[in-house]
């Protein structure tokens, strides 16, 4: 470490804790309390990186969030991360930093060619060229040249989580203003959350030695923090940045306090609901526009003061100040005291406060009032400055650093995000808060209270006239004064057009040090005041936030909650292969070879008995004197005619007449029904019923109570199903006479376990659905399993169930129907014409469009060549070549294990009248011939199901 650059004393660094780090392969040292930027500066590093577009040298410009030069790739234990702001990166031991955007190296960058040929690449150049033959020819090269840094290739080891909070007052910013506001609220008994993005609260107090309330700043800070602590109702977050301000006083915070430890780094994303908000976010110093104002060594004046005061770092030995306001005087006049040689102050204002002039004189500093900078010079760091004195004489002064200041701009990003309106203040030459509909106040520097009691006086921020060097507006996107001029010339004069055309303010810093200059310049060029020009829209994020933090723990199994069956583990021991069906992890089949398993399971149900876990089926109780009438308006079938203990199948429609769900319902008692919905529809249909009752028919007397999860359901299907179940002690009489198809009963097993049983069939076999409380599911499955062994029982999963039902031509809502299918299309026309009275969707079915007979109708087909493969998703086509047209599509298909041929269902134009017709099925260029047949492929009379 070059000792000369680090003062022996002062600053808030801990000299007893040296930290090692590496920059571009070179070992360096800093101290605890340093940022990466301060440590680099202390090690004499000037050029740290290269710029985005022209690969110009970049040095550290600021000491805060506004950094535009010192963006590095940094590994602090979690792999190399791109675009890390070195000014915000606390130095940690073993940190590794690398320059970005240089090829092949920082000192020798071939892509500097773009800088040399700069005049060929003005704003919007790409709109004018690269059109022929097409953009693709050039795009790859452009893409490779663009981009800041590289995506980290290794998986990152940081962990993320969210935190939710409520508070009476959220104070953003821990400077003197924020601390005062927090104290005031805490004294009044309010619950306060104070958030500071720096490693400790204090803000400007931490480096600015001028007193506060007549006290030394650090003494005031210590006393205030102690008092805050004592109130007991203040929480302080540090290394936490408020990044978003949304409706209803909801703010988001990116909390990095645990992000930089080597062991278990963690980032937390907070969502705070605040009663009211105090924004004490301070202000950001703005640069000035002059030639080569982007050279390393040119820094913001306040930053230079901060490096000296807080980190004991001298940013230069021969410094020239280029400033236009009184506050900057205060900053630069603090430099000599820190051992920094300040040679000259160039201030564009003609008259300057005498007290300031006196101080300058005391330090032996040359002052040039009414002078303006023309251009800096140097290759990889600034070496001299050309300027024009008040007489217009060109002069040159040697220097190794320039402290520049174009005045302050209050940090009002969050205020604007909140919907706050800004007004331009002529005297302060910046935007100030005006009014906001949310409960928020702005205080301190953020409110334009820059300096008390001095009056703040600021001069012009114009670029220097007649200049052969380039003057930079946006350091990150390499936008120049002439780019803005070009935009105006081409009539892109709205501030939004200028932003998009030149890309000023669109870089990673979102224009924190370029927006004000750009819009002031635009105003100059178009004869408008900055207030008339206005700002572009401020939007979250105030500072970029790692996407991992935004997602929190929502990764992998926590990305979307999976539902599990009560007997999940039991299925697993039986070899179940689980897949996701509508959020449920369900056995797709049991075994290893998908096709073989599905085939075996299907035949098992047809030949003996199969056991299926149907627990996710939706179950809703509806009870009350108006229950029957209510359900009559929900289902397309008549409900009041259903007898107690009987089951009926029906469809539900939406008001547009589209099928949304199907299932059976049971009449448990005269005024009491139990509905089954599809598994996927369980929640939605319960909500659907509630909505109709609460909003449309509130006077109907009934209660709706969903009970889906209470009951585990097992389907036992197959010719031996009855034999299996009858062997269970306490089972109701299942004989066909006592318990025909579509019956329901409930009872209690011998062990006291209650059950419900209904005889319904989705497989076309003799089939029962038996429900028991889900807590007993596993034991119950085992019992049936044992009871079924003599009858050859086996398990079957969803995949074979889908084949079983397809062999019967049963409808699968959502598969065989889509959001255009009405009940006519699905073959329920008779039901509709028999139904009396209003029901949901009824009126829509009267439209001519819904009754057209050339609609797509659901029909069965079999392939002519029995074994040809057809997959769901094939289309029915007519014509060839350009005249080829789709008449519909296959909604389900399989090679039936039972029938030993390929069958399927299709939604086909005029399908109902085309029985027997041969059709062509198209799939990815392949054609297969099929014939339209009765969709009840297997057991068309339903003898097995009713038997």
């Amino acid at each position, binding site marked *: 470490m070059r000792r000369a650059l680090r003062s022996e004393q002062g600053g808030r660094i801990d000299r007893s804790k040296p930290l090692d780090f590496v920059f571009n392969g070179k070992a360096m040292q800093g101290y605890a309390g340093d940022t990466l930027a301060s440590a680099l500066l202390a090690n004499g590093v000037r050029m740290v990186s290269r710029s985005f577009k022209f690969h110009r040298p970049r040095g550290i410009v600021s000491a805060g969030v506004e950094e535009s030069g010192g963006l590095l790739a940094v590994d602090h234990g979690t792999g190399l991360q791109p675009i890390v702001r070195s000014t915000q990166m606390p130095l940690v031991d073993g940190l590794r930093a690398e320059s970005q955007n240089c090829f092949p190296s920082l000192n020798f960058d071939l892509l500097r060619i773009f800088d040399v040929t700069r005049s060929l690449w003005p704003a919007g150049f790409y709109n004018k060229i690269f059109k022929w033959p097409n953009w693709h020819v050039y795009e790859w090269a452009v893409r490779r040249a663009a981009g800041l840094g590289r995506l980290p290739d290794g998986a990152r080891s940081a962990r993320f989580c969210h935190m939710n909070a409520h508070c009476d007052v959220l104070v953003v910013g821990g400077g003197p203003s924020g601390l005062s506001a927090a104290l005031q609220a805490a004294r009044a008994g309010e619950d306060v959350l104070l958030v500071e993005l720096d490693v400790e609260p204090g803000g400007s107090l931490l480096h600015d030695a001028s007193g506060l309330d007549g006290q030394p700043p650090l003494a005031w800070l210590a006393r205030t923090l102690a008092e805050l602590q004592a109130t007991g109702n203040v929480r302080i977050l540090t290394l936490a940045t408020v990044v978003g301000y949304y409706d209803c006083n909801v703010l988001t915070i990116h909390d990095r306090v645990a992000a930089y430890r080597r062991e278990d780094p963690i980032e937390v994303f907070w969502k705070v609901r605040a009663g009211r908000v105090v924004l004490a976010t301070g202000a950001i110093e703005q640069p000035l526009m002059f030639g080569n104002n982007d050279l390393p060594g040119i820094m913001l004046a306040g930053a230079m003061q901060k490096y000296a005061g807080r980190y004991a770092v001298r940013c230069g030995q021969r410094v020239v100040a280029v400033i236009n306001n009184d506050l900057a005087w205060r900053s630069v006049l603090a430099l000599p005291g820190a051992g920094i040689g300040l040679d000259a102050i160039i201030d564009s204002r003609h008259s300057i406060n005498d007290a300031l002039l006196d101080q300058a004189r005391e330090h032996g500093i040359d002052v040039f009032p009414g002078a303006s900078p023309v251009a800096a010079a140097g290759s990889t760091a600034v070496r001299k400055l050309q300027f024009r004195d008040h007489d217009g004489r060109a002069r040159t002064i040697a220097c190794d650093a320039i402290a520049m200041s174009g005045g302050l701009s209050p940090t009002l990003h969050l205020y604007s995000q909140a919907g706050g309106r800004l007004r331009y203040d002529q005297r302060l030459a910046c935007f100030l808060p005006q009014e906001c*509909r949310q409960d928020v106040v702005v205080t301190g520097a953020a409110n334009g209270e820059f300096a008390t009691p001095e009056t703040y006086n600021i001069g012009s921020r114009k670029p220097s006239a007649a200049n052969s060097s380039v003057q930079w507006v946006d350091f990150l996107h390499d936008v120049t004064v002439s780019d803005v001029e070009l935009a105006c010339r081409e009539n892109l004069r709205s501030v939004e057009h200028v932003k998009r055309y030149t890309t000023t303010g669109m870089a990673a810093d979102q224009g924190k040090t370029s927006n004000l200059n750009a819009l002031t310049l635009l105003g100059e060029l178009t004869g408008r005041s900055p207030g008339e020009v206005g700002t572009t829209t401020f939007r979250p994020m105030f500072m970029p936030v790692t996407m991992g933090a935004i997602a929190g723990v929502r990764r992998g199994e926590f990305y979307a909650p999976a539902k599990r069956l009560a007997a999940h583990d039991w299925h697993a021991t039986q070899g179940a292969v689980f897949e996701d069906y509508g959020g449920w992890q369900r056995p797709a089949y049991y075994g290893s070879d998908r096709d073989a398993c599905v085939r075996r399971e299907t035949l098992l149900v047809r030949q003996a008995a199969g056991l299926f876990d149907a627990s996710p089926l939706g179950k809703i109780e509806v009870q009350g004197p108006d229950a029957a009438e209510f359900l009559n308006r929900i289902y397309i079938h008549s409900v009041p005619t259903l007898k107690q203990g009987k089951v009926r199948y029906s469809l539900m429609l939406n008001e547009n007449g589209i099928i949304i769900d199907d299932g059976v319902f049971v009449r448990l008692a005269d005024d009491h029904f139990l509905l089954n919905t599809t598994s996927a529809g369980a929640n939605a249909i319960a909500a659907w019923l509630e*909505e109709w009752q*609460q909003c449309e028919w*509130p006077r109907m007397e009934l209660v709706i109570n969903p009970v889906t999860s209470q009951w585990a359901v097992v389907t036992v299907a197959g010719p031996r199903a009855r034999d299996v179940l009858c062997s269970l002690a306490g089972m109701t009489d299942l004989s066909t006479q006592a318990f025909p198809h579509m019956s329901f009963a409930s009872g209690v097993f011998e062990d006291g376990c209650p059950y419900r049983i209904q005889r319904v069939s989705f497989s076309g076999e003799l089939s029962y659905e038996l429900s028991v409380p889900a807590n007993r599911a596993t034991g119950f499955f085992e019992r049936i399993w044992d009871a079924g062994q003599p009858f050859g029982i086996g398990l079957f999963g969803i995949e074979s169930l889908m084949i079983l039902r397809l062999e019967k031509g049963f409808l699968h809502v959502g598969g065989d129907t889509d959001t255009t299918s009405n009940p006519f299309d699905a073959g329920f026309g008779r039901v509709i014409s028999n139904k009396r009275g*209003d029901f949901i969707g009824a009126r*829509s079915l009267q439209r001519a469009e819904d009754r057209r007979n050339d609609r797509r109708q659901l029909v069965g087909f079999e392939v002519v060549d029995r074994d040809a493969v057809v997959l769901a998703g094939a289309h029915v086509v007519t014509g060839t070549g350009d005249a080829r047209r789709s008449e519909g599509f296959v909604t389900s298909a399989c090679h039936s294990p039972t029938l030993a041929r390929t069958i399927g269902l299709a939604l086909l134009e005029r399908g109902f009248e085309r029985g027997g017709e041969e059709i062509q099925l198209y799939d990815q260029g392949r054609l297969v011939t099929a014939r339209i047949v009765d969709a009840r492929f297997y057991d068309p009379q339903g003898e097995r199901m009713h038997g």
Partner: protein
Amino acid sequence: MLRLDCPFCGTRDEAEFRCGGDAHVERPGQDVSDATWADYLFNHDNPKGLHLERWCHVFGCGQWFNVARDTLTHEIHAVYYMGEAAPERYR
């Protein structure tokens, strides 16, 4: 992020609710014209500014209620029960 005042549970985050669109829509009878029916099914006033809409507290009490909300500023002016008429000044 919106925070809505459920009349039963108090203020909660938007993620607990579902917006059900226009409030006070009258369901016509079966004997209306296709045009009237289509107007009921599909059309909206969709105003910029004050909007009367219905919301359901799905992750809470499960109740539907009405909200007078500004679609431009997202300010919530009033919350009132299902079946209740809108407060005079928001009609």
